[in-house]
C-alpha cells in the first residue's frame, strides 16, 4: 500500500471516532426525554378512559334505576300478572332499551326465562342464566358480564356493563337486566376522548378496536374485570423517527467528515509523499545507472535535508565513477603500453647483440666475420620481421574495420571453415553438430576469422591430440556457436583475462587473437564467452543475435 493511501486511512478515525462516541449518548438522552413525554400522555389517556367508563357505569345505573321506577316496566309486570301470553310483552324490551340509551336489556320472569329482549329478541322464551345471574348480585352498581350479541356473522359473547333491577306486581316479579356493551362504539368514544388507539380485550384477544397508532406503540391495559380490559396504545413512531433523524444527522456528519478527512488527508499526504516519491524515483534512476539523476522536489525539514543529501550523494557517486573509469582506462593503456613495450623490447636484445657481435668481429677482423655477419643478419631479419608482425597485429587491433553485415547461413559458413580441417593432423578429430537453417546478419569474412581463430586455438591446445566439437544451435533469440576441445583448458582465474589484449598462454602467441575475436563479436551485437568444457578442456562460445523475423 502506498504511503499516500496509508496516510489517508490513518486520518479517517479522526472523523469517525468522535461521532461514534457522541451518537449513542445523544440518542440515549433523546430517547429518555421522548419516553417521559409519551408516558405522560399515556397516563393521561388511561385516567381519561377510566373516568369515561366510570361515567358510563353511572349512566347505566341511572338508566336502570329510572327503568325500575317507570310505569312501563310496571305495565309489563301487570300484563304478565294478568295472565296475558308472554308474546304480548315480547317486544317491550326493545322499546324500553332504546328510549334509555342502553344497548343491553332483557326482561326475565322470576324463573329466569326471557320474556323480552331488546339486544337479542330471538332469545325470548329461553333462559339466559349468564345474564340473569346479575339478579343475584348484592351490589346494585353496574358490573361487567359477558352478554350475547348478534350480528350478521353470528352470535358472540361481548362484555357489557350491566345492572339488574326487579319490579313486583302482586306475586309476579319481573327482572330487568340492562346495561351497555363494551363494543365498537365505546371503543370509538374512548379513542376520540383519549387520542389513542383503543382495543377492547376479552377472551384473550382483541375483539374491537378504534383509532390508530402506527407501530411501534407504547400501551397500557385498563383492567375492567376477569379477562376484560381496554388497551390504550400510543404510537412511539414519532420518537423512533426523531431518533432516526438524529442518527441520520450524525451519519450525514460522519459522511461529510470522512469526505473532508479524505480531502485533507489527500492534500497532506500528497505534500508529504511527493518528496518521498521523488526520492524513490531518483533512487530508481540511480539504480538503473543514471548517475545524472537529481531530485528537484521542494521540501522542508528532514525530507528537504534528505533530498539534499541524496543529490549530493549522487553527484559524488558520479564523480567517483568518472574517476574510476578514467583510472581504469589509464591502467588499461598502461598495461597495453607495458605489454607493447615488452613485445617491442624483446626483439631489440638479439638485434643489439647481433650488431655488437658484428661490430666486435669487424674490429677484430675476425676471420669468421662473414659467417657471423650471415648469422647476425638472419637474426636481425627475424627479429625485425617479428617486430613488423607485432606492429601489424596491433595496428589491425587498433584499426579493426567496421563489419559489412549481410545474411549469413551459419551452418554453411561453419561448413566452409571446417572444410579447412577436413584432414586434421594425426590424433585430432573434428566433430561438427550443426543445426541447419540458422541465419544471422554478419560480416562473413570477420566471422570466418573468429571461427578459424577459435578452431586453431583448440587445435593448438591439444598437442597430444584430442577431439574438437563444433556445435551450432539457437536459443532465446540468439545463435550460439560453441567450440570445445579436450585440452588442458583455461584456469578459471584466467578466463576473464584471455580476452584482454596481449594475454596469452601460448609460446610465441601475440595475445591479440582472442581480443580481436571478442571485439568482432561485440561489433556484431554479440559476445565471445569463455567457459570450461565438462571434460576439462576449454569451451569458447560465440553468441550472435538472430534477426527479429527469425527469432523464436
Amino acid at each position, binding site marked *: 500500500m502506498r504511503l499516500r493511501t496509508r496516510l489517508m486511512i490513518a486520518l479517517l478515525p479522526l472523523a469517525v471516532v468522535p461521532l461514534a462516541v457522541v451518537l449513542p449518548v445523544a440518542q440515549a438522552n433523546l430517547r429518555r426525554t421522548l419516553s417521559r413525554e409519551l408516558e405522560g400522555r399515556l397516563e393521561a389517556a388511561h385516567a381519561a378512559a377510566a373516568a369515561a367508563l366510570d361515567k358510563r357505569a353511572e349512566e347505566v345505573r341511572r338508566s336502570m334505576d329510572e327503568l325500575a321506577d317507570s310505569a312501563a316496566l310496571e305495565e309489563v309486570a301487570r300484563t304478565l300478572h294478568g295472565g296475558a301470553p*308472554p*308474546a304480548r310483552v315480547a317486544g317491550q324490551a326493545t322499546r324500553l332499551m332504546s328510549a334509555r340509551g342502553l344497548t343491553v336489556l332483557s326482561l326475565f320472569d322470576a324463573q329466569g326465562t326471557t320474556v323480552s329482549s331488546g339486544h337479542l329478541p*330471538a332469545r*325470548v*322464551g329461553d333462559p339466559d342464566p349468564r345474564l340473569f345471574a346479575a339478579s343475584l348480585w348484592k351490589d346494585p352498581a353496574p358490573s361487567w358480564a359477558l352478554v350475547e350479541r*348478534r350480528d*350478521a*356473522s*353470528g*352470535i358472540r359473547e361481548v362484555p357489557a356493563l350491566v345492572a339488574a333491577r326487579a319490579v313486583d306486581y302482586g306475586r309476579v316479579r319481573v327482572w330487568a337486566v340492562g346495561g351497555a356493551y363494551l363494543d365498537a362504539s365505546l371503543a370509538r368514544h374512548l379513542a376520540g376522548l383519549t387520542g389513542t388507539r383503543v382495543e377492547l380485550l376479552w377472551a384473550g384477544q382483541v375483539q374491537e378496536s378504534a383509532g390508530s397508532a402506527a407501530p411501534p406503540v407504547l400501551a397500557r391495559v385498563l383492567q375492567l374485570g376477569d379477562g376484560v380490559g381496554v388497551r390504550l396504545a400510543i404510537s412511539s413512531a414519532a420518537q423512533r423517527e426523531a431518533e432516526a433523524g438524529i442518527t441520520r444527522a450524525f451519519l450525514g456528519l460522519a459522511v461529510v467528515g470522512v469526505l473532508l478527512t479524505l480531502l485533507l488527508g489527500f492534500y497532506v499526504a500528497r505534500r508529504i509523499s511527493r518528496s518521498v516519491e521523488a526520492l524513490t524515483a531518483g533512487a530508481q534512476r540511480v539504480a538503473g545507472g543514471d548517475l545524472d539523476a537529481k531530485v528537484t522536489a521542494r521540501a522542508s525539514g528532514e525530507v528537504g535535508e534528505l533530498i539534499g543529501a541524496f543529490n549530493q550523494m549522487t553527484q559524488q557517486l558520479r564523480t567517483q565513477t568518472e574517476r574510476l573509469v578514467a583510472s581504469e582506462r589509464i591502467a588499461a593503456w598502461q598495461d597495453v603500453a607495458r605489454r607493447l613495450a615488452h613485445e617491442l623490447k624483446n626483439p631489440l636484445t638479439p638485434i643489439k647483440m647481433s650488431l655488437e657481435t658484428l661490430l666486435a668481429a669487424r674490429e677484430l677482423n675476425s676471420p669468421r666475420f662473414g659467417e657471423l655477419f650471415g648469422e647476425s643478419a638472419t637474426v636481425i631479419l627475424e627479429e625485425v620481421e617479428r617486430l613488423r608482425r607485432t606492429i601489424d597485429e596491433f595496428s589491425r587491433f587498433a584499426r579493426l574495420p567496421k563489419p559489412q553485415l549481410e545474411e549469413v547461413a551459419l551452418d554453411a559458413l561453419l561448413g566452409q571453415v571446417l572444410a579447412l580441417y577436413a584432414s586434421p593432423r594425426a590424433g585430432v578429430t573434428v566433430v561438427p553438430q550443426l543445426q541447419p537453417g540458422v541465419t544471422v546478419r554478419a560480416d562473413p569474412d570477420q566471422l570466418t576469422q573468429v571461427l578459424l581463430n577459435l578452431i586453431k586455438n583448440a587445435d593448438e591446445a591439444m598437442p597430444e591430440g584430442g577431439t574438437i566439437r563444433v556445435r551450432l544451435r539457437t536459443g532465446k533469440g540468439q545463435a550460439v556457436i560453441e567450440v570445445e576441445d579436450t585440452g588442458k583448458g583455461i584456469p578459471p582465474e584466467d578466463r576473464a583475462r584471455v580476452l584482454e589484449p596481449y594475454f596469452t598462454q601460448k609460446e610465441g602467441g601475440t595475445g591479440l587473437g582472442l581480443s580481436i575475436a571478442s571485439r568482432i563479436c561485440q561489433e556484431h551485437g554479440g559476445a565471445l564467452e569463455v567457459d570450461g568444457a565438462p571434460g576439462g578442456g576449454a569451451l569458447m562460445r560465440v553468441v550472435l543475435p538472430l534477426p527479429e523475423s527469425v527469432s523464436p
Partner: protein
Amino acid sequence: MSQPRLLLLAGGALALTALGASRPRYGGELRVVVAGSPAPEDPALADTPADAAISWLTAPALCRLDANLRPAPVLTDEVTRLGPQRLRIGLGGSRATPAAIAERWERLSRTATLSPYRALLYPLRDEGRRLTGRVTDDALELSLAFPWPDLERSLCHPALGIPGNHGAFLSNRARTPLLANPAHAAGRPFVDRLLLAVASERDAARRLELNQAEVLLGAGEDSSPAPPPALSATYLAYRPSRVGASLGRSVEAAIDRADLTRYFVRGPAVPMSALLPPALMPQPTLARPPPPASESRDVTLLYDAGLDDQRAVAERLQVKLHDRGYRVALKALSRGELRRRWAQGDFDLMLHAVLLPPLPGPALAVVLDLAGRHDLLPTELRPIGALADPAERDAKVRQRAEALRETLPLIPLYAQGLAVRSSSQILPPASDGQGLPLLDDLFLVR
C-alpha cells in the same frame, strides 16, 4: 205514538239502512294498506298470501277456487276434458291469449326463472315445458303425461297468474292507484280505483283506525267471519353436503315450532311439523329428538329481506343453533335472488316460504320440488293421480308426505294465513279457496 210502535219504526229504519248499505254500488276509491313490503310484480314470486292477493288484482290465474275448492273461471270460457288425459282451455272471451299463457307457464321451468310452482304443471306432457306448440287462436290444448284429476284446480293457483293487466284492475308503472278494468273477463269491479299502500304494521293499523284505509292486509287479528286457511308454508331448506347431515336433527332438537308462532311470527300462524300445513293434513306430534353431538360449524342462513317474519325466525334459528355450536351468519336477499340461489342449490340454509295450493296432491308436488327432489315427482305423483276418488287421493298424499318427511332436506316450520281487517266502510271481504281475500269484489257502502 206508543213506545213499542216507536221501537218497531226505529228497527225498521235500521233494517232499511243496513239493506241500503249492503247493496253493492259502483264507484269510489278503495284504499288497501299492506303491512310489510311491496308485493313482487312476478306472480311466481308471490309466496305470501298478501303478495298473492295483490298480484291477483292485475295478474289473475285462469280460474279461482271458491270456498268449496271448486274452480270458477276468471280468464277462461270453459275448461273441457277432451279425454282422460287431454284438456282444452277455451279463451275466447279473454284478452289473455293462449300463446301468452303458454309462454308464461313455460317460464316457470326456465333456468333463469325456475320456480317450485312449476311442479303444478308437472303432470302435463313434457312437464309443461313445451306448451307454445299446443295453442290455437282461442284455446290452449293440454296433454297430460299421466292421469291427474287435480289439474284443473291446480291451474287456479295464483303463481300461475298471467301478467299483462288481465285482472280486475289495470296497473300503471307506479302500480298504484289501480284502475278498474272494464274489460275484465269476470266483469268490472265495483270500485273505480284501488289505492295500494305499504306500511309498517303499526302504521298500517293506525291508518285503518283513522279511516285512512278500508282494508288492512297482513297485520293484527283477522276480522273475517271465517278464518282463511293457513297455506303460506315456511320451510328451512338445507344442503346436507354443505352443512352436514346432522344439521336437520340439530334444528329439530333446538326449535320449538310453537315458540316460533307464539313469539316470532305474525298471525294467523300455526306450527307445522308435517310436510304439508295443518289445513292439508293433520300434524304429527313430534318428540323432540336428542340433540346430536355439538358441532362447530360456520353456516350461512339466507332469508327473504322483504319478510319481517322470516328475519325474526332466522334470528331465532341463529340463536338456537348457536347453542348447539353452530355459528350462523344471516344474509337477507331479495326474493328473486333468493329464488335464484335456490334454483342453483347455492346455499347452506335457506328460509323458504311458498303459497301452497289448498289441494294435498299439488301441494306435495310443490314441496317436493322445493326440497330439490324434482326427481321424485314421477314416482310420487303417478300413483296419486291414478286414484280417481278424491278422498283416497288425499289420503295417499298424506301417507306419502309422512313417509317422505324424514328423507327430505327440508324442515317444515310454520304455516301462515292472511290476516284481513276492514273498516266499517266496507263489508268484510270473503276469502277464496286459496285463503285470499276477494278484493275485486269489494264495494264501498257509503
